[in-house]
Every structure is written in C-alpha cells, then in structure tokens.
C-alpha cells in the first residue's frame, strides 16, 4: 500500500502544486523509516503481545486438554507463590549489590588507570578482559576453578593459610553469584568511567588545585559532577543487564540451594521448562517487565536528582 501512495505522490508532482511537492518529499521518509519501524514491531511488540496473551490463558504443555481463557488466574497463582516473592527479592538484592560493587570498584580502577604508570596498557587490557568471557564460561570457571571446595584456587589459598575451605556455592550462594557477576561487569563500568575521566579537562583540575582543594575535594567537587552523566549511563545499562542475569546462575547453582539464588529470569525458566506452564511463566515475565520499568523510572529519578542535575551542561 505504501508504494501505491508513493506512486500517486510522484504522479501529482508533475503538476508542480506545492502540496504535491511536499508530499513527494515526505513519502521517501516514511519508506526509509519503515524497515526500522517494522523491525522494532516484530522484535518487541509481537513477543510482548504474545506474552500478555498467554499470561491470560490456561496453557500447560503437559495438560493439552486444559486450554482456554484463565482471566487473572495466572496472576493470582503468581502472587500467592512464595517462590515468586523469593525470586523478586533475590533479583533486587542481586541488582543492587552488583551495581554497588561494579560501580564502586569500576570507579576506583578507572581512577587508577587514569594515572600514568609503567605497564598501564597491559594492565588495562588485563583488567578489561573478564568482559569478553561468555557468561556460561564465567560460571564454569568460577564454579570449578575458583569456588570449588576441593580443587578451587580459593580453597587452596585458604588451606595454605591454615583455614577451613568454604563451599562457596553451597553456603554463600547469593554472595558467590554477586561476586561472579561483579567480576564480569566491573570492566564495563571501568571502561565507560575511564573514558569519562579522560574527557575531564585538565585545566579544571588545575584550577581546583590552585583554589586550595585537596585530593578528596578535587574528586568530590569536580570529578564526580563531571562523571554524573557517565555514571547514569553505567547504572542504567548495568541494571538492565543484572535484571536479566541467567547464564551465571544456570551454570552454577541452578537457582539453589532451595530458592536461594532463584531470580526472576530463572523463576520464569523453571516454570516454562520444568513445569511446562506457559501461562504462569508468561505472567511472571510480565511481572519482570513491570519490575524493570519501575526500576528504570526510579533509577532515572534518583540519578537525575542526585548526580545529574548538577552537572547538566
């Protein structure tokens, strides 16, 4: 249909009326934008729509006879399911803790790598490399080579210090997951914050020094406000990624022990691929979408209020 309209537009252009000309100019814009718009629709709206649809259906793959409209039945089950609330809590703990660790550590490392020292290039590359390791591989490395109570490097270190080795994944499952994910994502924060630091004009640091600031005041009053927007980007992107962490959990604790490390994505996975309850897992997925939105909105408010407002330039 689009092409029909365009053809007409081109046809009227011959009469050189002003309207025809402006329509002719607008038509290609639509045509050119169409692929992107269609792609976005297919990519986002269709899955979301289907998820919403299924979340209101009785649809369990193991019970093909029991189909049909469920009303808010799936949501009711969800809200009364203790595991769901556990998963929600775990998700929040995971996101907040990982954000704190990656941003804090990333900032420290960025400050370090912003200074000049011998071997900085090599050190920088090494520091960034965890980011290139696939999540599943990260999980396996930590599970088998570091956390393992018998063969793990950490256990070896503790034994050589005369301490009792810890079975990390069994006794501190959430902490272990947080450590793994933070290890993976600190380089990301480091990279972005480092570029932020390097865009800080030298003369501002010099001016603030001459104004009598010590290192802490320099950091507090100049560096942090300058990094405001960059921090915002890091926090936004990372919280989205942390909300959806899955592979690290799948490869190590499988959500356990019990529900100790079951976050929302893992909860959805369990319901879809162990219970085969597509309806319930769709409802949980909608819950996750809502959570992500709440998170994003709160975050935008918080970050904008605290860091960004000052440094808007």
């Amino acid at each position: 249909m689009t092409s029909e309209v365009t053809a007409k537009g081109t046809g009227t252009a011959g009469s050189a009326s002003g309207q025809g000309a402006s329509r002719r100019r607008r038509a290609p814009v639509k045509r050119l934008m169409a692929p992107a718009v269609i792609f976005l629709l297919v990519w986002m709206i269709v899955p979301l729509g289907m998820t919403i649809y299924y979340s209101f259906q009785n649809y369990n793959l193991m019970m093909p006879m029991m189909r049909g409209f469920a009303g808010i039945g799936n949501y009711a089950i969800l809200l009364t399911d203790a595991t769901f609330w556990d998963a929600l809590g775990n998700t929040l703990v995971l996101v907040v803790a990982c954000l704190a660790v990656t941003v804090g550590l990333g900032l420290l490392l960025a400050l370090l790598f912003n200074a000049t020292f011998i071997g900085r290039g090599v050190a920088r590359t090494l520091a960034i490399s965890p980011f290139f390791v696939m999540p599943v591989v990260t999980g396996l490395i930590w599970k088998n080579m570091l956390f393992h109570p018998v063969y793990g490097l950490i256990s070896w270190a503790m034994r050589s210090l005369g301490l009792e080795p810890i079975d990390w994944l069994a006794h501190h499952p959430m902490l272990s997951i947080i450590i793994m994910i933070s290890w993976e994502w600190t380089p990301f924060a480091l990279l972005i914050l480092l570029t932020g630091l390097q865009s800080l004009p030298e003369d501002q640091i010099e001016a603030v020094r001459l104004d009598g600031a010590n290192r802490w005041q320099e950091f507090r009053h100049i560096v942090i406000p300058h990094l405001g927007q960059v921090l915002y980007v890091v926090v936004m992107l990372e919280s989205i990624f942390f909300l959806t962490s899955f592979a690290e959990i799948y490869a190590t604790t499988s959500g356990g022990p019990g529900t100790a490390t079951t976050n929302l994505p893992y909860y959805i996975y369990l319901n879809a691929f162990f219970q085969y309850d597509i309806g319930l897992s769709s409802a949980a997925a909608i819950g996750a979408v809502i959570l992500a939105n709440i998170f994003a909105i709160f975050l935008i408010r918080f970050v904008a209020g605290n860091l960004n407002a000052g440094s808007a330039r």
Partner: protein
Amino acid sequence: MAVVELKNVVKRYGGGLTGKAARSEEAPAVDDFNLVTEDGEFVVLVGPSGCGKSTTMRMIAGLEDNTEGEIRIGGRDVSDVAARDRDIAMVFQSYALYPHMSVFENMAFSLRLKKAPKSEIDQRVNEAASILDITHLLDRKPRALSGGQRQRVALGRAIVRQPQVFLMDEPLSNLDAKLRVDMRAEIVKLHRKLGVTTFYVTHDQTEAMTMGQRIVVMRDGRIQQIDTPNALYARPANMFVAGFIGTPSMNFMKMRVGDDTRSLKGETARFRAGDAFTGDLLDSHRGQEVWVGIRPEHLQHHEGDAGALENGLSGTVDVVEPLGSVTMVQLEIDGHRITAQLEGDTRARSGDTITLTCESARLHLFDVVSEQALARQPVESAATA
C-alpha cells in the same frame, strides 16, 4: 602580596618514560630564568608562541616542577609546597570555570573550601562581582555566559581569593578587539586597586606595553630583556627585542662602519652615528658591517637634495598606504625593505624616488654576528613616540 623571585630556573619536559637520551637532546622549555619582582608589581611576560611563557607561569603556580633553580614567593622557597598551598590565583586562557556550578558558586568555591563563614563569602563575592559588573549574572551557569562575561567571572574567582600572587595566562586572547581594550583597562585598574603582585602573559605587544610596569621579553625559553616599556622601546638589547617591540616593527639595514668610526655607509644610504654610541665599540667595528635599526616612525621625508644630508637614504617607493593621520610608505633601499611612517599629508606615489632622513640619536646599532645592541652612551631623556 608578595615578592616573587626566580633564580636560574630551568624547565625540561619529557622526563620519565622517554629516557635520558631524549632529555639531554631537547632544548629546555625555559632556560636560566632570573627575575625578582617588586612587591605588588605588574610583570608582563611576552614573546612568540612556544617561547615558554605558560611554562614559567605554571612553575610559579606549582602546576609544573622546575627542573633546576629556585622559586621563592614572599621569601619562602616553594619547591616543596604543593600548588594548593601556594596561595596563588591563576586566570586560565581557557577560563577553566566549573561548568556545574553557578557563577556565585564558582567565585565562592575557594572560600568554601577554606570554610570561611557564609557572611564573609557573600560579602567578598558580591564585592568582587560589583567591581567586575557581573552582579546580575551570579545565578547563571558558565555555559549561559558570553566569552567576555566568562572572562570576568574567571577574574572574579581570582580576586575573591585575595591571593599573594595573580597569574594571568593570555586571559584576553579569546575576546574581540573592543572588549579586549576595555578589559585591559579593567585589569590595570584592578591591579592598582588591589596591589597584588601580578604576572601577565601575552603575545600581543600592545597589551604588554600598555599594561606592564616591567616587561619580560622571552624567546625560545630564554629571557631576552627585562625592562620598563619605555626602556624596551628606546634601548632594545638585541635585534629580536627591537623587532618585537613596536608596530610597525623596526627596519634593519646592513651598513659598513667607516674608518672615522662614526660614519655608516650603505650603497645609497649613509648615517653618522653621532655621539650616541660609545667610541670604543664602533672602534672595534671599524671597517666592518653592522646592523642599523631605525623605527618607521623616526624616519622623516626630506624634500630636496640628498647630497647635503648627514643622515640620508633614498629609494623607490613601492607601496603607499595613507591612513589619514599618517602615511605608511614602503620602499626598497639597498636591497632592504624599509617601512617609513610619514606625515599624513605626504605626497608620494609608488615609483617615485624619495629621500628620508633620521636623527642620529634615533639609530640603533647591532653586531652582525651576535645580534646584540652596541652599547650607547647613557644618554638623553630616552626618546619615545
């Protein structure tokens, strides 16, 4: 307010990673800098780009370590004193205002760091703001200011501090011509009012001449001459200073010293050096070539016969630029390009042959090899224009 002393100060860049070889080969950015200011003096550093002006300032501020030598501020050796403890305010060429703070906060920042009482901060910021006429801008962010306004905020931030020393690194270079003239006067007034020892960097010699109590002329990291504006103009120490100070710049011609050690001869030009120069020096140059320097404004048009003149030079007019009050004439004399600044009503056309003359006392002589000025008698009420 303090005396600033620099003794044999040397700065070499490129230490550390580049290694010793690189260090020893490279010429120092600042070489053997010696200067003692008066208390409350306005010192201007001037010179072509890359001559080490900023480097000198940054060493005084403590933003850069001096490789050799000693810097004293108010009698105290500051080699181990960090920039933040030197009590120096610097106005950066780029202003370096804090973009996330309002004008008020920018100016108040150093006082806040010192934990000054709020009433005092308010009072001092408002005072500085009213001196600079930026009271109405106090609530704005720097990005909402024009270049000239930012400039004044940067000055204000320095004034509020009431520091021992002001450093200003080409603060006016980003402003348009008119604003620059206004701000120039503003800064001079400010200095008179506050009486703080001030270093001012510029590569604009008009700025240097109008503002400085003393001027330091630099080239390639070395001081060429330190003197008052009048003395620089009247008695430049070498050809570089002679050519750098004064617009249009000084004319130079190569001439031979006659056997009488007084007469100077070119192909068509001739001068008598008169008594302005010490006899011995011209003695030692007897029969040799020297550079003769004459400022364009010291050349006069001579109507009539050149033969009768003691100091005379004739040439063919190339370009005539009537500027109203004066007429600039460029001509070719003995293979040298000469600019003369003549009376506004001078009639000259390109292609004419005209004769110029000049008082003996206005001549400057320079050694051909060293390019240093040949000493003059300690003379006369130094000629100025």
